[in-house]
């Protein structure tokens, strides 16, 4: 069965590159334009992995992770942060919020798919 990934990013081109890379590796992709959109889509369908940006208008990535972790069906779903930020402080905040990993942009599709495969097969 195809594993589904929720890709949350306010940049259209970034979402396009994410969807392209993940679909090429055989995953299904649901796109969301910001944290709130991501949360709404996560409620409609439980996905196998969430990839989220941090800085987005409205709800940011950290807030999305906290909201997802508060939901019963998202307590063990892997969540990866994919962001331009790489500071230790914000990484620690991500970890505390419940992120399973931190990827700094720009991503390399092969390395991204390796990580995703490691987490959800």
């Amino acid at each position, binding site marked *: 069965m195809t594993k589904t990934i929720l890709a949350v*990013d306010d*940049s*259209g*081109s*970034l979402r*396009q*590159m994410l969807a*392209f*890379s993940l679909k090429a590796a055989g995953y299904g992709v649901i796109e969301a334009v910001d944290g709130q959109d991501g949360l709404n889509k996560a409620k409609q369908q439980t996905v196998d992995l969430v990839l989220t940006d*941090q*800085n987005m208008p409205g709800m940011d990535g950290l807030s999305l992770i906290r909201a997802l972790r508060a939901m019963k069906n998202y307590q063990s779903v892997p969540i990866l942060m994919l*962001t*331009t*930020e*790489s500071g230790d402080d914000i*990484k620690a905040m991500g*970890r505390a919020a419940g*992120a*399973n*990993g*931190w*990827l*700094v*942009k*720009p*991503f*390399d*599709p*092969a*390395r991204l798919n390796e*990580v995703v495969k*490691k987490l959800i097969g």
Partner: protein
Amino acid sequence: MLSHEPRPDELMNTQVMRLLSGVSVHGDQHLAEVERDLVQMDALLSEAIKKLCTSFMAIHQAIDLQQETLKGMLSTEKTAPEQAARLEALREEIGQHVGAAVTGLQFQDMTSQLIGRMVQHLAGLRDVFGALGTKGSADLPESGSEEMLAMLNHISDRVGARCTELAGTVRSTVNQRHMESGDIELF
């Protein structure tokens, strides 16, 4: 009727106010130009990335179809092993280029964040220049250096407050200096 000759302190006050107004008005005008150019550049980059992504997807799809067709042709005929190996090597080479292109095509996500931050800084600086300006002759102290000093202190406080507000609101979120792929850390 005797004409009133301005005293040196009145002249000084007028000159200081004229200088502040001039810096405020001209500074604001130039910053507005820079802001307009940055917004235009952001729009152009946004349009360019859309076109690039569309073309990239179309090229990739065409190459995929071409590879499939070649594979089909080679499977129906007696193919020399070196031809099959060459096709496989080309497929891998294309894959590497596609991966590099996907990394490169993420530039706009970073440039738009940087431009957005520059625009916020410019808006803040325009606010600072606005705080430097005066409302006109009504603000001008009639005489005396004490009144002038009080007024300059007031302007200085307004400028300081705007600068503090600006420093607090515009956080740097992009520190990348090249387009190499970033670090990955699993917790």
